[in-house]
């Protein structure tokens, strides 16, 4: 039986009593020292708990992964190394009195690490072995070797059962994140995010007031979470695993833990990344589009960090600056500054303080995209619309002179475009931990997330005249729109944990309460009739303002117990009760129960003997049921009126219809799974089957027109998601000089709106029913594409049209990740990661517009190229919907650790690296299956994507990096 970190103080206390006589100890004890490295990479691992079984002595490794355990009684001992996020390793040593034994650990990066400690629910860390649910982990090492600087990019291949799609290449743009399918028809699928226990802004769509729109790039609050100093990221899928998070966790929970430093000598490092971004030509219909609108852009990032501490206090800090010139000819640059500090201090023998603070400032340049119309350059070029401005729209057939003219026009238009985003963000977390006994611990946490963003759109008269929106000489059509959003999130939490042993039984009990509050204040300033050069609304011909206040409070209590019997049978029981200011008056507290079972077959005595144990080292089965929720948006429960100024006077009309019975939608999940580890951990397999049914799903169905009322969210629907999740990892080759590990995941997704609750079909994204839209319809997947479907006659022309036909689902039926890690002689590491999907479909407006605008399209029946295109282009929308299977390699990175005798000329160690982001890929569609304009139609609203329409695809990035530790 392993020693849990929490139990160490007790046993170490007992052992320490023996240390009262140093002379006695000196005569009968020895020392164990050594180093812990990361298997594969050979990197030193700090913060690893190394302990001696049975004696309960231990130490934490320092920055170089080194540890020393003194006063170890002579004799044979099992030494164990364990760390949050790593698999546990053991070594057997024999200690001689007065001597020192050296050992080395290589903690493997295994997909299934049953003894890995994770933090789930609202409690403290617990061994994975006891959990009936999944927790996916991205380690500090993964983060350090990743060339990516955005959380969502890191998650793209770091989470094997979550799909992350970067739908726009513009800086700070939102990404679609989806775990176990879209559980809601009214709210996005982005998981709730906690940083050091503090719930942070995870808005991944346009705000109520913003320059983002449903049909263009939307700014994401996830993109600007400072990536400094992150020690570990955990993802808990929705369902029983997130029950204790209550009314906000149906999409899963993403937890970010930052570094507090480790005891030992101070350790500093400086790293520099320099490279460039370049457009990926294969994503474009016209190669000329790339030449006209894109370029290679320098990108660089510089970082300094440090950590260290004493037995009473540890500390860490990190700061960085990042600058991207952008890969468009203009309007794509970004810059950010960020920093984070972490601190832990022992206030007494029983009381400890943990704190962290981060700050980030980001600036993004933006360009018009999606369905903005007028001067939207990708639509003009890739949609063939540029002919309307007097240019040849068949770019491949255009003469060099025509292209030069077009280049001149675009250069000027891009220079005149002015759209910017600035985000400042500060997060802080403070925790007091009190451990009156070894079995009992309490913690109290308070933290804030403050995110302040400003989006500014300036359209000058010169821009509008140049882009032919207004006639030459126009001087009164200039506009300024400024959107401010201020988010303040407060988290308060207090809880306790008790661990008890009762013979063969042991039980971990967690109980506590949590409160979070969000204050979301938004304002819009608009100026009309603005003279060129002015960047302020002051003095404009006309000024207007608008604002939105959204406040929400959630307060809940939770309790859970994890019972173990002989360290092989485990039962989890849990309950959370939530009140929420968004619940209707008739709702009251909402309850979320969970129940789980674990059977660890490999802990059976009979498992340890015979040939079976030679192959299977771990085998575990799991089952659970749990409920997690999504609360409705603020105030949607109230029946309100809507004020509006009209012709300079107050006017009022119908507001929100209101529903006193409005409550959270609840996702009930049943899950069965198993974990298998074979050949001493060289091969691991994790499998899950789940069935998640969202009952009382919130449908934003329109009220019948005869009522005259607006849309009201109502708990009327039911949505089902079910699927299989398989994660496989295997060390296919290992010698003393070379290790090769492959990993992959395979996930299936079956999604269906099983009950529409009597509501009519309604759209969540897209356009009108006559074009194409993404709808909620009973019996269909969430976001099913719907539009006109043509039947062609013998002559190849449209014979009949089926209106509002089902054209396919943007949700993949299967998706997953692939990866390979290669380690050569401990100082050279190669990492390759990829993701894939099949079974999804997507519509290309770029193609449909090219058809309308007279350009060839090899995928429509040839006879239709000769027909009246304006009469037919919308009659055969199905012709522009394609399968979007893809396999994309996201990252290839090589890291080289300079031999220490060379490195020590400049520091303790030197790492060199080179990486390529988005190096290669394969996709079945005629367009980039990721560039997707279909953001949510409302703040935090649901979307599943499905529309390729004038969006910048993500670039290919080449980066070289140097990291020096001092």
């Amino acid at each position: 039986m392993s020693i849990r970190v929490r139990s160490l103080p007790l046993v170490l206390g007992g052992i320490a009593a023996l240390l009262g006589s140093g002379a006695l100890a000196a005569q009968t004890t020895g020392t164990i020292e050594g180093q812990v490295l990361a298997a594969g990479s050979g990197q030193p691992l700090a913060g690893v708990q190394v302990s001696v079984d049975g004696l309960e002595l231990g130490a934490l490794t320092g920055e170089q992964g080194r540890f020393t355990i003194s006063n170890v009684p002579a004799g044979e001992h099992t030494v164990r190394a364990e760390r949050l996020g790593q698999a546990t390793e053991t070594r057997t040593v024999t200690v001689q009195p007065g001597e020192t034994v050296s050992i080395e650990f290589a903690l493997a990066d295994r997909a299934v690490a049953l003894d890995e400690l994770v933090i789930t629910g609202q409690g403290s860390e617990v061994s994975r072995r006891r959990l009936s649910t999944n927790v996916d982990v991205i380690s500090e090492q993964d983060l350090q070797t990743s060339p990516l600087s955005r959380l969502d990019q890191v998650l793209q291949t770091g989470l094997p059962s979550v799909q992350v799609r970067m739908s726009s290449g513009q800086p700070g743009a939102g990404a679609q994140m989806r775990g176990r399918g879209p559980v809601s028809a009214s709210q996005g699928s982005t998981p709730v995010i906690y940083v050091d226990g503090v719930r942070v802004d995870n808005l991944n769509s346009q705000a109520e007031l913003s320059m983002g729109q449903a049909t263009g790039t939307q700014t994401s609050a996830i993109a600007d979470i400072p990536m400094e100093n992150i020690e570990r990221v955990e993802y808990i899928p929705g369902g029983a695993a997130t029950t204790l998070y209550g009314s906000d966790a149906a999409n899963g929970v993403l937890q970010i833990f930052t570094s507090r430093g480790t005891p030992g000598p101070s350790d500093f490092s400086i790293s520099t990344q320099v490279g460039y971004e370049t457009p990926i030509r294969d994503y474009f219909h016209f190669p000329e589009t790339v030449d006209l609108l894109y370029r290679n852009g320098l990108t660089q990032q510089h970082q300094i960090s440090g950590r260290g501490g004493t037995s009473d206090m540890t500390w860490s800090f990190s700061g960085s600056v990042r600058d991207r010139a952008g890969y468009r000819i203009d309007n794509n640059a970004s810059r950010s500054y960020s920093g984070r500090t972490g601190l832990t201090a022992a206030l007494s023998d029983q009381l400890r303080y943990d704190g962290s603070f981060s700050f980030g400032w980001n600036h993004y340049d933006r360009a018009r995209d999606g369905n903005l119309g007028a001067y939207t350059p990708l639509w003009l070029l890739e949609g063939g619309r540029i002919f309307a401005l007097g240019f040849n729209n068949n770019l491949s057939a255009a003469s060099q002179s025509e292209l030069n003219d077009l280049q001149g026009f675009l250069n000027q238009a891009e220079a005149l475009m002015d759209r910017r985003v600035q985000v400042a963000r500060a997060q802080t977390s403070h925790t007091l931990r009190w451990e009156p006994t070894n079995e009992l611990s309490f913690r109290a946490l308070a933290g804030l997330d403050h995110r302040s963003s400003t989006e500014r759109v300036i359209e000058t008269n010169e821009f509008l005249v140049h882009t032919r929106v207004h006639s030459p000489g126009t001087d009164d059509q200039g506009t300024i729109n400024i959107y401010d959003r201020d988010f303040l999130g407060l988290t308060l939490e207090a809880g306790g944990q008790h661990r008890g042993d009762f013979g063969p039984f042991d039980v971990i009990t967690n109980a506590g309460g949590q409160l979070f509050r969000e204050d979301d204040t938004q304002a819009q300033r608009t100026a009309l009739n603005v003279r060129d050069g002015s960047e302020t609304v002051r003095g404009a011909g006309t000024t207007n303002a608008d604002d939105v206040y959204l406040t929400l409070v959630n307060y809940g209590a939770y309790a859970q117990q994890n019972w173990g019997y002989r360290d092989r049978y485990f039962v989890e029981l849990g309950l959370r009760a939530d009140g929420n200011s968004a619940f209707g008056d008739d709702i009251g507290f909402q309850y979320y129960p969970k129940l789980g079972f674990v059977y660890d077959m490999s802990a059976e005595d009979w498992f340890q003997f015979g040939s079976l144990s030679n192959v299977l080292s771990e085998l575990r089965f799991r089952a659970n049921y749990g409920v997690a929720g999504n609360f409705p948006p603020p105030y949607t429960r109230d029946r309100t009126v809507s004020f509006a100024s009209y012709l300079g006077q107050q006017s009022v009309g119908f507001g929100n219809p209101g529903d006193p019975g409005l409550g959270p939608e609840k996702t009930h999940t049943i899950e069965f799974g198993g974990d298998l580890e074979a050949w001493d951990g060289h091969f691991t397999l994790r499998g899950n089957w789940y069935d998640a049914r969202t009952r009382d799903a919130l449908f934003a169905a329109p009220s019948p027109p005869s009522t005259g009322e607006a849309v009201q969210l109502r708990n009327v629907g039911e949505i089902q998601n079910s699927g299989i999740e398989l994660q496989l990892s295997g060390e296919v080759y290992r010698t003393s000089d070379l290790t090769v590990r492959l990993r992959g995941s395979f996930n299936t997704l079956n999604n269906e709106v099983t009950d529409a609750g009597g509501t009519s079909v309604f759209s969540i994204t897209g356009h009108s029913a006559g074009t194409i839209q993404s709808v909620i319809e009973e019996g269909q997947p969430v976001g099913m594409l719907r539009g006109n479907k043509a039947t062609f006659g013998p002559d190849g022309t449209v014979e009949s049209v089926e209106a509002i036909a089902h054209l396919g689902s943007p949700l993949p039926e299967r998706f997953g990740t692939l990866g390979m890690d290669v380690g050569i002689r401990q100082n050279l590491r190669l990492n390759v990661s990829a993701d894939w999907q099949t079974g999804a479909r997507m519509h290309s407006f770029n193609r449909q517009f090219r058809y309308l605008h007279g350009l060839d399209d090899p995928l429509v029946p040839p006879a239709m190229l000769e027909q009246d295109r304006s009469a037919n282009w919308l009659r055969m929308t199905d012709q522009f919907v394609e399968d979007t299977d893809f396999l994309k390699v996201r990252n290839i990175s090589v890291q080289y650790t300079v031999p220490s005798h060379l490195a020590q000329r400049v520091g303790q160690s030197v790492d060199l690296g080179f990486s390529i982001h988005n190096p290669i890929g394969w996709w079945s569609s005629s367009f980039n299956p990721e560039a997707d304009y279909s953001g949510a139609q409302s703040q935090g609203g649901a979307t599943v994507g499905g529309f390729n329409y004038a969006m910048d695809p993500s670039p290919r990035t080449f980066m070289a990096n140097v990291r020096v530790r001092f």
Partner: protein
Amino acid sequence: MTIMTGTSTTARPASLRQCGTSALPIRTRRMRSLLRSLLALLVVATFAGCDFLDPTEVTNPTVTQDDFINLPNAATTWTHGVERQLAIAVNDLVLFGEVGSDNLFNNRTLFTRTFDIPEMEPVDAAVVSMQREVQRLRAMADDGLNLVVPADEGATDETRARLHYHRAYASLAAGEYFVGLPAEGNGPVLGPQAHLEAAIQDFEEARGLSSDPALQGAATLGIARAHHRMGNMDEAVAAAEQVRANDPLLLRSVEYDISDGPTNTMQTAIYDSGQDEFQPLPRMDFLFPKYFSVSATDQSAIAIAKGEEAFLILAEAALARNDLQGARDLMVEVLGIVDQRPTAMVDDESQQRGRAGGTWIYPNRSEVLVAASPDDEPLPGLVLDRQDGPVEVPTVSGTSVTADRIAGAQSEEALLELLYLMRQEIFVVEGRRIVDLGIRLPVALEEAEANENISLDADVLRPFIPAWIPGDRGMNRFDYEDGDEVAVIHHNLNRALVENRTSDAILPFH
């Protein structure tokens, strides 16, 4: 608690753990003291009811309907809101109604592309939007009369009159544009006759309550219009005669607000966007842009009641009675009214009649003649030169019909055709043409799906598109290429109306 370092191992002696407080290190005792003090402070603050410690207070910044009704002057504000809703509803009726007629063609991709065909299915966003806004207008006026006014002691008869007028307009639109609609939330579908009768009742209430001659005149014209649509010739004539006698230049419009909305969407489509969105039938070119911005901060109003209509109703009644000369006299009177309406000089240079990326190219030179059909004589003066400086356009009413053409029309058919051309021109971009053509929109599918009184296979879920309406965008088609001297429209729908005048769907007096 045990802290371990990377270089040494420390552990607290068990003996200390088992001792009392006095045996604890000083730091520990101080921390316990601090904790006790903090706990005491928290208890005191909690029981003292300190609001500053309460992070749970949430206040909806929006006013609830119950609270609003009890505010001073609620009825006035509500009525102004109903007028704003009228502007929104008229926006939809005009925007989609015109595209659904031969007046305008959506030459781009913004806005509806199906009404041009015409296809008006119950799932069409335009169909849904039109009835939603009309029904909201009715429902808001209902609440105004039934909830807000009774609770507001300061509500005046003038306020009541305005609410009745606006509810009447909603009923009038329901009776004119749709095959049927519910008259209350989730109610059964009533046919056009019931809505028009409800409109007349409310117009009469408005006329009786108001002391404002302008509102009285508009209500009277509304009564004439509703009776006209129902074919009640005597009642329509009686009301029209009152308008003719009392206020022949009657003009009631809805105004738009560029600052706070709603804005005039038709103005965006025919003028502001500069993208050649909507293009008029070539024979209507001279009437455009009827809506435009004189400056960056203004918007054109849209007329909903004009004195001209009274004369046109009277002329149609005269023709129905075979009083050809009486009809001619009335039609000439209409020309006199139109002559008194204002015109404006408008810079419309950005309008390129489809040359800025439109589907079709339209004539854009004044020397181009336009024939109403292959059987009609090409006529001059219907197309303006927009690239040669500002053009003069009527802002309320305009027509190409002259006294000579009226005098030259010798038959009832010829006069009826001219009369309906005058209606087409005078009411252009006011959303009226689709009604004159006899087209009626269906009940929206989303109404039927949620309304237990409507079955999903009900006839009201199908539009009524008369047989004389050519499909495949035939209403808008014409033959013209750049350089041609004549543009020939494929179908003269005014003639088609006359030829089919005995149908119940059109020309109500015949």
